[in-house]
C-alpha cells in the first residue's frame, strides 16, 4: 500500500510565486486549483502519487509537522515561530523574499533601547518576539494579532510591532519606522522527518527535482 504524498501550499502572496516553480518541476495541479472560490480543499496533480492542499501559511508547518502532509512550502518566519523538530527545510526556494523586523512609531525610534526592561509588542509571531527581546534582556508582553499590525501603534495598542516588511511602504504610510531586523525571510521547501526517513526515494526525488529547478534560475 503506497499512500499518496501530500504537498501543503500557503494561500495568498506566496502561492503565485510557488506555482511557476512547480510548473517547471513538472507539477501541474488540476484546473480547479486556480479557482480561488473553490470549496475543494484537496487537489490532484498530473502525478497520480502527489496531491496538493491549500492552507494558511502557519498551517502549512502544522500539517507537515504532524505528517498529515509530507511536503510543504513555508517561510522561515513560520519555521522560526514553531521550531517543530519534525520539520526539515532542505531547500531554499528563494521566493517570497522579505524580512522580519521590529517597527515603532517614529518618535520612539530615537529611544535608547538598552535602558528598557519591558516592552509591549503587537505581532503575529509571539514566540519569535519573546525570544528576540529576551536575548536583549528585555521582557516582552506580546499582544497577538492576526493582521493589520500597523494599526497597533497608531491606535495606542502597543508602541512597537514585529512584522514582515517587504518594501517598508506600509510602515511609512502609518508613520512607523523599521528599528531592527530580526531575520531575512524566504520560502523553504519543507518535509516531514519520518516521511523522509520511511519514503526516502519518493520524497527525495521531489527535493532533488525542485533543487534543480531553483538552481537553474
Amino acid at each position: 500500500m503506497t499512500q499518496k504524498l501530500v504537498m501543503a501550499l500557503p494561500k495568498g502572496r506566496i502561492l503565485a510565486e510557488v506555482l511557476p516553480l512547480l510548473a517547471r518541476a513538472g507539477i501541474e495541479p488540476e484546473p480547479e486549483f486556480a479557482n480561488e472560490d473553490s470549496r475543494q480543499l484537496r487537489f490532484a496533480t498530473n502525478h497520480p502519487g502527489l496531491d496538493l492542499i491549500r492552507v494558511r501559511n502557519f498551517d502549512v508547518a502544522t500539517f507537515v509537522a504532524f505528517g498529515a502532509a509530507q511536503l510543504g512550502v513555508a517561510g522561515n518566519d513560520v519555521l522560526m515561530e514553531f521550531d517543530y523538530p519534525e520539520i526539515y527545510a532542505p531547500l531554499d526556494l528563494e521566493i517570497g523574499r522579505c524580512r522580519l523586523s521590529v517597527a515603532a512609531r517614529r518618535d520612539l525610534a530615537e529611544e535608547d533601547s538598552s535602558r528598557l526592561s519591558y516592552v509591549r509588542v503587537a505581532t503575529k509571531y509571539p514566540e519569535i518576539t519573546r525570544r528576540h527581546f529576551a536575548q536583549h534582556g528585555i521582557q516582552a508582553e506580546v499582544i497577538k494579532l492576526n493582521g493589520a499590525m500597523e494599526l497597533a501603534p497608531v491606535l495606542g495598542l502597543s508602541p512597537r510591532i514585529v512584522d514582515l516588511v517587504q518594501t517598508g511602504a506600509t510602515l511609512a504610510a502609518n508613520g512607523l519606522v523599521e528599528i531592527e531586523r530580526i531575520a531575512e525571510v524566504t520560502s523553504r521547501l519543507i518535509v516531514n522527518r519520518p516521511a523522509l526517513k520511511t519514503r526516502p526515494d519518493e520524497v527525495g526525488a521531489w527535493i532533488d527535482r525542485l533543487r534543480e529547478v531553483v538552481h537553474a534560475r
Partner: protein
Amino acid sequence: MSEQHPALLPVGLRDLLPPEAEAEAVVVARLMAVLASHGYERVKPPLIEYEETLLSGAGAAMAPETFRLMDPMSQRMIGVRADMTPQVARIAASRLKTAPRPLRLSYAGQVLRVRGGQLRPERQVGQVGAELIGSETVAADVEAVSVAAEALSEVGVPNLSVDLTMPTLVPAICRATGVAIEQVRDALDHKDAARVAALGGAAAAPLGALLAAAGPAKRTLATLAALELPPAAAAERQRLAEVVARLEKAAPGLRMTLDPVENRGFEYHTGLTFTFFTPGASGELGRGGRYVAGNGAPEPATGFTLYTDTILQAVPAPTRPRRLFLTPGTPPEEARRLRREGWVTIAALGRVDDAIAEARRLGCTHVFERGALKEV
C-alpha cells in the same frame, strides 16, 4: 471558579482502558522476550533517585525534563526518572561492576517528563530497552540494531526502517575546518541548507554535501565515499560502511537510510546511532546508539530504547479473546478445564433468567449452560 470534573487528569496523562491496557502489557512482554532470548537480563531500577546520581553523566541531557521533589526523609533533592538508560548505566558501573563484560541488560518501565513534545503531549511514556556495556566493536553496534529490529518485527511492526547516523562526523569536519559547531548545529538539525551555506564558513561545502547525501543507505554511502573528508571523519565513514554491510546480513529485509548530520537527541552519543520508523506511525518507534557509560571508570557502551506508546499505534489492533459466560452451578473443575483450553471465563454471581441475554450484556461470545458450549 467552576468545579473541576472528577475525571480530569493533568495534561499529558491518561488512563488506559480495556483492551488497550492489556495490549500494551502483551507488547511489552513480547519485546522483553526477544531481548531475553538474546541474553539480555532484566534489571529493575526504582522510580525515583537522588537528583545528582540520576542526572550525572549521560543523564544530564534529561535534566530539563525531570520532575524533582524533596525527599522528606533525607532532605535531599530527588528526581523522578525521565529516561531509564542512565539508571541502567549506573547499575552497570556500580553494583554490576564486577559482572563479566560484555554485559547485556534489559529493562521495561514507565518514565515521567515535565513537558510533552509539541507533537506528543504525553508526559508519561513506556520504555523497553537494552544496554550492551563493555564492547567497542562493530559487532556490538550491529547487535544493538539487529536485536531492536527483531523485537519490533516480532510484535508486528510493518515496513520497519532504520535511520543510521554517525554524530561524530560533523564535529570532525568542524574541528578540521576550524568552525565552531554551535554556529551550524541548529541549521543542520532542521536540514536548512540555506542557513548551513550562510553560516558554515569553511565547513559550508563539506557540510552541505553531507546534508544532501542523506537517503537510502547504499546511495548515501556511495556519495560519502566520493567526498574529501578529514582523516578523523574518514575513519567514522569507514566504520559506518562496515556496520551497513554487516547489517544487510544480520537483519535482512530491514530498510536502511543514512543521515550523516542527524544529531537531535544524540547529544551524548559517541558513535553509531540509530532511529526506527514505520510509515504508519507519526513518530519514532525507538532509538539508540553508542555512548560512554560510567562516571569514574568510563566504559564503551551501546543500547536502545523502544517507545511502547508509539509501537502500539503501529501494530495491528489486538483481537479480543473469546469470552465464555458460565451459568450458575458450572462445576469448578469444568471451568478450570475450559480456562486451560484458552477460554476467558466470566462466572455468573447470582441467579440468571436469560443466560444468552446476560452473556451478551457482559460482552461474552459464548455461553456454557448445562454442560454445553453455545455461541451467543
